């Protein structure tokens, strides 16, 4: 109970939410284009290990973030070749990507377990020490990047013509194809963006959140990010709400132990997952009430094969 002042609490929550927000923003764009990439966890892990290795070897954080972005994109490209090019089942391919990424990151990072790096520096504010609450805004570059990206994604999807096309591709690929838009090309682009964002999300964990590398570092955050996209009903600003909520729940687990809540920590640790299930049930609505279900992109997870 000692230091439960608001500023550190908010900082902890935002730190826990940030990887979810980054990954989920990318996945939201991907799913809006009609592709379900379940490989988030794998892409995040590969991004995390690549970012960490570059940081250990070169010590330039811009370089390591770039490496994380690029490695995430490579993984997403692999998914794209299979799911879009060879029209494989997206669920299975995404799972394969996660399993593959878990193994690959473990192999690549084997020599780096136990090494530490300087955490990403926080961008300070002049006068932040005078007004204590301004400390809330002392965040890493990635925090501001995530916030800006969320805004950009919102503007892109709902205020620009390419965003409209992307949504059209996701709603009905046959109609978009009939209008002459390259469905596969749009989806591939969205996938690459999602991959880059996941890579960054992973790198944030390995470079700032827990500045070290260990096998399976992301601990299921990729899956939570996936659930968050559903939770947000594919609307960017609700994503912010969802990530903060989930960040807060996962922090509650840490604080719960300190506060001496009479519940085994295991049950608090279950909370984010149970909350996701509950959110899924609430968001999806009843089977008979079809109105709310229509919010999902119409062509989600359906492989596209052009006619003719």
């Amino acid at each position: 109970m000692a230091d439960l002042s608001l500023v550190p609490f908010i900082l902890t929550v935002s730190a826990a939410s940030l990887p979810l927000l980054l990954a989920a923003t990318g996945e939201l764009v991907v799913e809006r284009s009609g592709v379900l990439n379940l490989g988030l966890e794998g892409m995040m892990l590969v991004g995390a290990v690549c970012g960490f290795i570059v940081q250990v070897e070169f010590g330039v954080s811009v370089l390591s973030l770039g490496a994380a972005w690029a490695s995430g994109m490579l993984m997403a490209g692999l998914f794209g070749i299979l799911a879009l090019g060879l029209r494989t089942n997206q669920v299975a391919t995404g799972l394969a990507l996660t399993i593959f990424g878990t193994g690959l990151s473990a192999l690549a990072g084997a020599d780096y377990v136990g090494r530490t790096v300087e955490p990403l520096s926080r961008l300070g504010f002049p006068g932040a020490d005078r007004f204590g609450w301004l400390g809330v805004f002392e965040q890493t570059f990635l925090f501001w990047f995530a916030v800006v990206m969320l805004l950009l994604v919102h503007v892109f999807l709902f205020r620009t013509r390419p965003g409209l096309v992307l949504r059209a591709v996701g709603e009905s690929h046959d109609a978009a194809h009939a209008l002459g838009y390259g469905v596969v090309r749009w989806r591939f682009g969205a996938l690459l963006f999602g991959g880059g964002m996941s890579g960054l999300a992973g790198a944030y964990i390995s470079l700032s959140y827990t500045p070290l590398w260990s096998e399976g570092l992301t601990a299921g955050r990729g899956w939570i990010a996936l659930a968050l996209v559903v939770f947000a009903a594919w609307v960017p600003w609700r994503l912010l709400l969802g990530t903060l909520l989930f960040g807060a729940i996962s922090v509650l687990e840490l604080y719960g132990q300190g506060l001496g809540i009479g519940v085994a920590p295991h049950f608090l640790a279950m909370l984010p997952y149970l909350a996701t299930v509950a959110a899924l049930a609430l968001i999806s609505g009843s089977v008979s009430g079809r109105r709310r279900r229509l919010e999902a992109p119409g062509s989600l997870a359906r492989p596209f094969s052009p006619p003719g």
Partner: protein
Amino acid sequence: MTRLRVEPRTSAPLSLHVAAFAVPVAATALLGSLVFLSFSISPLAGLHAFFVAPVSSAHGLSELLVKAAPLTLIGCGLALAFRSNTWNIGAEGQFTLGAIAGCGVALFAPWQDSALMLPAMILAALAAGAFWAGIVAWLRTRFAANEILSSLMLVYVAQFLLLWLVQGPWRDPDGFNFPETRLLQDAATLSPLLPGTRLHSGVLFVLPAAVCLWLILYRSLFGFQLRVVGAAPRAARFAGFSRARIIWLTLCLGGALAGLAGTLEVSGVIGQLVPRISPGYGFTAIIVAFLGGLHPLGVVAAALLVALTYLGAETAQILLGLPHAAAGIFQGLLLFTVLGGGFLRRYRVRVIPRAETATAGTAGTTKTAPSLSSPSSTITGTTKTAPSLSPSSSTTTAPSLSSSTITETTKTAAPLSSSSSSLSSTTTATETVTGKVTTKTTPSLSSSSSSSTTAGTTKTVTKTETDDG
């Protein structure tokens, strides 16, 4: 000037099915060698450590069976679910619940030394696995909650439950504070089949289970309904097959089998509950199911192969110092190549000479459609505009197609597609399923499902079958 055209296959010869198994294995070995090379490990040494060394002893072979048993049990159940388009990826959680339930019976049942112990444990495990999967089915059928995500989230819940039990209430009081239960008594332990190995009698469950599932899938009405629901949901709905019932049954059956695998693992291999009872069997079984072609008997063969990657990773850890998780690389690659190879099984890539392209391909090119309406007006419309677009865009050959499918109520589509000329009419396999099921409703069915037909190839686009509720 030629171009490539991708056409759906109506039927695949047996050789293709064999190739769809063999080619991915070879491709995985090749790609795995590249991965080894990139980490400056000799590919030969790597492949030897992964795929040869583990099975070059009797002990290794017995371990292979020990690892393949849970993979087969779970994989068979998942194959059934996947066949019906139900994506249960939470088998790991159902496995864990089965292990907890079986162990709970062993620890607390009043009939400690009786012969009833093992059957009771198995029954409890079946029920617990089915219950855990039943939650997913309930969420899916009652709330339309995506089963991929809900089943996965329950994996984590199950793992924390297990962790809580072994660290808290079920911890062995004489266990020096280690997070584990006491060792199971003899009556709750599966006897070893071969002395000196971990090969336990639970392995004997596996083949009968696989054969049973094969019988269910291919020799029962339920199996037929299940396959129709997966391959042609609209046809299934017209035929009156209950999607919700299929979801419930496939999920619970898969959950029960995963639970059984869990309790067999605890009772036959580990001998007590520990925090980590599975090296990811539930997830790996998904690979097994796909590698086995979603066919229960194929799953048996696939499980042996994938079990080898687990053993290989252990050997490679000892011989080459690779991390244990490297098994994931091979499992991921295997699934990639299997899925990618499926493309060749489902589609035929034809080289179209120029002359033929000119005659048959003109109407089928993609450029004809945009003339229909101005792009700006149609983008804003979503899904609903598509159906109204497509009938006018193409010379609709749906009536002739549906009539041919109606006549084709017998065994297979092969005579139909071979008798018709190579380009004029190719029906997809799913469409013939619909023909088989509901003769009377077929006209309405096929006219709606063949949304985009071109003069060149009549391709029924089964993707329009969006219903899953």
